[in-house]
C-alpha cells in the first residue's frame, strides 16, 4: 500500500522495541468479546488508474453544465469563473495540508491569509470586523440568530419569507434545542407584491421579545432589498438587523449592508471561491461591528501583533470565546472554519482587484438584464416586475407549471432554472433564473428561445 511505508523488517524491529509479540498483541486493550472478527464489508481495493477510471464512470452518470448543456440555476450558489491561479495556489500542500494555525510561528502563511480574508469581508460588508469564515451561509445565518439572542438577551427572531428556504430550515434546526415546544422562537415575515419584506407586517411582528430580524439581499427571488427601513423598525424595537448576502459579488454595486443599518452581516462566498461542486464546500461569511458584538461573535479570528523583536506577525486571538476554552459557555461549538476556501476567496478577490470586482458584477448585471428584457419581449411576465435585480430573477411560465416546463427544456439541453414550487408552493408557475459572466449572448438567446418554445401557452 503506497501510503504505508513499513516493511516487514521495520515492523519486526519496532515490535521488539515495544516488547510486543505481534501487531495483534497491540490491541489487547480491546476486550476479546468486543473485537471485530473478519474483514470489514467494503469494496475491493483499487490502484490509482482503476480508481480514476471508476471516478470517470461515476462522473459520466452526471450531467454537468457545458456548452451543450446550459444551466441557469442559482438559489444560493452562483457559479463564476475561478481563475487557474486560485487552484494552483490553494492546492499547494503548504496551505492544504496544514492544520489549524495553533502554532503561529509555523503558520504565518495561513494566518496572514485569514487576516486578508477578514479585511476583504469587512470591505464587502461594511462591518468593522469579520471572522475567519464559517461552514456556509445557512449555518452562518443560524449562528447570527444565536448571537443576536446572546447580545439582546431576547429569544425570538423574525425571518423574512424571502430568506433562502434552506437557511430558514437551518435556523429552525439550530434553535430547536434551546426552545421548548410551547415557545416557538422563530416567526416568518411575508413579502410584498414587489418581492420585498413587508414592513407593515414586520412592524406588527416586532416586540420586546424579538432579538433580530433576518433579511436577505439580493433575496431568494433575486430581489434587492433596501435594508434601511427594516433596520430602523428593528432598532426602534430594540432588535438587531441581520443581513444575509449569498451572492457577495452584488456588493460591488449594492450598498454595503452595514451602511444600510445591518448589525450582523452573514453570507456565502461559495461561487467566488470554487466551482459549485454540488454546493460545497464553500465558505460562510460573518461580520459585525462594535466591541461588544465582537466578543459575542462565533468562529475564529486572526489578529496582528508583534514578536519579541517587534516584528509584525499574526495569531489566532480572542480565542476565549471558543469552545476549547469556554467549553459549555462557548459562543458556539464551531471549531473548524473553512480556511482553505476562505483563502481561495481572498486569492480570487485579490486577482479581481477593486475595478475587476466591479466589472465582473456589471457583466453579471448586464447578462441578467438582457435575459430579462428578452423574456419580456417574448411575452413572459416577471414574478416581481417592479423589483430591482442583480443576476437572478423569477419569471412566470405561461403553462402555469414550472416543473413540467423544466423537464421539457432539460431534454432540449437547457436546465433553465429552479422551479420555485420546490420551496414556495404558492409559486407553481415561478422559475428562478440565474445568469453569470460565463453565459454568452447566444446561450441566453437559446434559453429564451427554448423557454418560449417549451414554456407552453396557458
Amino acid at each position, binding site marked *: 500500500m503506497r501510503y504505508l511505508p513499513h516493511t516487514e523488517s521495520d515492523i519486526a524491529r519496532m515490535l521488539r522495541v515495544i516488547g510486543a509479540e505481534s501487531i495483534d498483541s497491540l490491541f489487547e486493550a480491546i476486550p476479546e468479546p468486543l473485537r471485530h472478527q473478519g474483514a470489514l464489508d467494503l469494496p475491493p481495493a483499487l490502484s490509482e488508474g482503476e480508481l480514476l477510471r471508476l471516478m470517470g464512470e461515476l462522473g459520466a452518470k452526471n450531467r454537468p453544465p457545458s456548452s451543450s448543456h446550459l444551466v441557469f440555476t442559482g438559489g444560493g450558489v452562483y457559479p463564476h469563473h475561478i481563475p487557474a491561479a486560485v487552484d494552483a495556489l490553494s492546492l499547494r500542500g503548504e496551505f492544504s495540508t496544514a492544520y489549524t494555525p495553533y502554532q503561529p510561528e509555523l503558520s504565518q502563511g495561513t494566518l496572514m491569509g485569514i487576516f486578508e480574508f477578514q479585511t476583504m469581508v469587512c470591505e464587502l460588508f461594511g462591518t468593522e470586523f469579520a471572522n475567519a469564515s464559517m461552514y456556509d451561509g445557512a449555518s452562518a445565518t443560524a449562528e447570527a440568530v444565536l448571537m443576536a439572542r446572546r447580545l439582546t438577551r431576547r429569544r425570538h427572531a423574525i425571518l423574512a419569507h424571502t430568506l433562502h428556504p434552506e437557511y430558514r430550515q437551518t435556523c429552525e434546526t439550530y434553535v430547536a434545542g434551546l426552545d421548548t415546544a410551547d415557545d416557538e422562537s422563530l416567526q416568518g415575515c411575508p413579502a410584498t407584491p414587489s418581492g420585498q419584506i413587508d414592513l407593515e407586517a414586520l412592524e406588527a411582528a416586532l416586540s420586546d421579545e424579538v432579538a433580530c430580524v433576518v433579511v436577505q439581499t439580493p433575496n431568494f427571488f433575486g430581489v434587492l432589498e433596501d435594508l434601511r427601513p427594516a433596520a430602523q423598525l428593528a432598532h426602534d424595537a430594540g432588535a438587531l438587523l441581520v443581513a444575509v448576502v449569498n451572492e457577495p459579488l452584488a456588493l460591488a454595486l449594492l450598498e454595503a449592508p452595514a451602511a444600510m443599518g445591518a448589525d450582523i452581516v452573514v453570507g456565502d462566498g461559495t461561487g467566488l471561491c470554487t466551482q459549485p461542486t454540488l454546493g460545497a464546500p464553500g465558505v460562510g461569511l460573518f461580520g459585525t461591528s462594535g466591541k461588544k458584538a465582537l466578543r459575542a461573535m462565533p468562529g475564529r479570528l486572526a489578529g496582528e501583533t508583534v514578536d519579541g523583536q517587534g516584528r509584525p506577525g499574526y495569531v489566532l486571538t480572542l480565542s*476565549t470565546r471558543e469552545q476549547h*476554552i469556554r467549553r459549555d*459557555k462557548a459562543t458556539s461549538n464551531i471549531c473548524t472554519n473553512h480556511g482553505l476556501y476562505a483563502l481561495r476567496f481572498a486569492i480570487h478577490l485579490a486577482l479581481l482587484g477593486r475595478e475587476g470586482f466591479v466589472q465582473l458584477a456589471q457583466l453579471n448585471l448586464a447578462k441578467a438584464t438582457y435575459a430579462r428584457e428578452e423574456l419580456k419581449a417574448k411575452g413572459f411576465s416577471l414574478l416581481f416586475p417592479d423589483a430591482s435585480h442583480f443576476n437572478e430573477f423569477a419569471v412566470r411560465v405561461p403553462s402555469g407549471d414550472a416543473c413540467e416546463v423544466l423537464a421539457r427544456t432539460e431534454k432540449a439541453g437547457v436546465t433553465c432554472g429552479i422551479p420555485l414550487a420546490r420551496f414556495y408552493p404558492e409559486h407553481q408557475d415561478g422559475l428562478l433564473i440565474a445568469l453569470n459572466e460565463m453565459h454568452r449572448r447566444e446561450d441566453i438567446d437559446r434559453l429564451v428561445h427554448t423557454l418560449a418554445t417549451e414554456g407552453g401557452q396557458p
Partner: protein
Amino acid sequence: MEFPKDLRYSKTHEWIRYTEGKARIGISAFAVSAEQLGDITLVELPEVGQSFAANEPFGNIESVKSVSEIYAPFAGKVVAINAELDDSPELLNESPYEGGWLLEMEPDDAADMENLLDAAAYTALVASEA
C-alpha cells in the same frame, strides 16, 4: 507571596478595601500571576445598580488562554465600576491593588466584612493552593 495587610480577601481571590459603608473590590496579585490567570485581556463587569448575593458571579476576567468568573465577596449593590479597565485591562497585572480595582459595592450588611479573610489567613490559603 505577600499581600497588603490593610485589605480583606475572599477564598476566590478577590480583595476588599472597606471604608465608610463602601467596599472597593479587586483581585489579588496571586490571581493575576503568570502561573494563574497571566496576562489579562478583558474584564467584564456588572452595571452600576445591580445587586448580588454573596458568592454570586458578577463578572468575567479573560486572559489569553482562560476565562474566569469573579464572585461577589458579600451581598450588596454595585455603586461604581472601574471604566479604565475597558481600554486597559493590563492594569490588573500592573497594579492589582490600585489602578486595577474592579468595582465598588455597598454591602447589605457591613458585618459581613468581618467574615472575610485577613492577609495572614489569605497568605495561608494561597500557600495551600500554590
